[in-house]
């Protein structure tokens, strides 16, 4: 009967994880920044602009990872009706939207010096823009219904349907010849990138991930309290003594 899973366990778990994840993310991001800004070489082609990579690529990865989290928890919510799953999806989408935005803007800032244009209707860029709109739509849809459980279900369906976009983002550089860089770090086998660049990249990516976990836990906790608030108000409105079972 996980339909009514007790959130107490989740909250205990969250309280246990939170201090670690927040400390770890601060540490990793600090270290990543140090290496990114002071201890990595400029690229022989791209010069100093390559430093944008340490923001751009981790945020791109996180944007996609966050959407995948959302899609996964939406599937769990639809199939097993686990109430926490809905809350996770709801908590995740603003985070994902923020990082997608960061990826878009940093990519654009990188594109200007590299390609000579802020924007091009290239497959990867377009699909990333669509991801951003999907996040916005998800957030809007969740809040568009008077009954929050309906909003959650509609948004879950949207999240799942929109998941097709993720492989398109990932593989668009392989399927179409585009302006954008093909995978060099995330390739299977040996990454074709200078280890001095790889280190800060990985540090930043891990730091962002820990940050994501931290904020996600905070937001899920907020959502749990909010749903509890709603339940209390609802029982006040309907004047039904929620908890007094009627003797038959």
């Amino acid at each position, binding site marked *: 009967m996980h339909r009514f899973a*007790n959130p107490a366990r989740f909250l205990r778990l969250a309280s246990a994880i939170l201090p670690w994840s927040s400390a770890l993310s601060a540490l990793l991001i600090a270290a990543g920044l140090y290496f990114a800004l002071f201890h990595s070489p400029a690229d022989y082609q791209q010069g100093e602009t390559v430093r944008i990579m340490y923001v751009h690529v981790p945020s791109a990865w996180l944007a996609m990872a966050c959407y995948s989290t959302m899609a996964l928890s939406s599937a769990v919510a639809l199939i097993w009706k686990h109430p926490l799953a809905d809350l996770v999806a709801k908590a995740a989408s603003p985070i994902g939207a923020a990082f997608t935005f960061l990826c878009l803007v940093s990519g654009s800032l990188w594109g200007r010096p590299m390609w000579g244009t802020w924007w091009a209707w290239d497959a990867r860029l377009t699909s990333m823009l669509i991801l951003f709109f999907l996040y916005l739509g998800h957030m809007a849809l969740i809040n568009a219904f008077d009954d929050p459980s309906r909003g959650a279900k509609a948004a879950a369906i949207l999240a799942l349907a929109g998941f097709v976009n993720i492989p398109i983002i990932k593989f668009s550089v392989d399927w179409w010849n585009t302006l954008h860089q093909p995978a060099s770090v995330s390739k299977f086998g040996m990454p074709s990138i200078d280890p001095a660049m790889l280190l800060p990249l990985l540090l930043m990516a891990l730091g962002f991930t820990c940050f994501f976990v931290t904020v996600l836990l905070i937001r899920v*906790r907020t959502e749990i309290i909010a749903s509890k608030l709603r339940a209390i108000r609802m029982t006040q409105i309907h004047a039904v003594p929620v908890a007094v079972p009627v003797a038959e």
Partner: protein
Amino acid sequence: MSDFAPNARFSGHGLACLRGERMVFASLDFALDAGGALLLLGPNGSGKSSLLRLLAGLLKPAAGRLAWNDQPVADDREAHSARVHYVGHHDAVKPVLTVWENLRFWAGLHSPAAGDALTAGALERFDLKRLAEVPGKLLSAGQKRRLNLARLLAAPAPVWLLDEPTVALDRASVKRLEADMARHRAEGGMVILSTHAEIDLPGAAELHLNRFTPAAPDMALLAGDGEDWL
């Protein structure tokens, strides 16, 4: 129609219904055998319509399960849909289609067995034959309701779920509906019906919905106390 089998049994166990995050009823049980009838009673807002929608398969129970011959209904939704007729508050009458077209469409969609003959018979039975070519928008409230009820006869199905079916019907039509329900039950069908009015449904079991107030344990998630949570 194997579903009209004399040993058919439609039952629910431990059903709970959440609407708008509010528990409307919980741990509700019922069982109905072929030929049986169940009368849902209760004041406004007690959850009669919600229960009927749940039995039809439009709402998923928050807890508990529905069974047909002890097979969970959830296993084969389409078979369940073929078994039930649901008549709700809305009449689903398209204003621009004629009475005949409206009925024929629903009958054909519900069962391929339904043909023109059955449709004509149903119209006849509900005294709509002379209106067959009239567009839906010209019907009075009671005529629309009768058209909606005519689906019951135009495409046979063993379980009738009727949400306040006598609303807007004149007395002659109510009498006819009562006779139809009796015949349906004699053939092994079942009727589950909510109403605030008098209706003649001999031998029907009664389910009083106001007795079920939201029970506690399941609400732990939504309404539990602070400390358990944080």
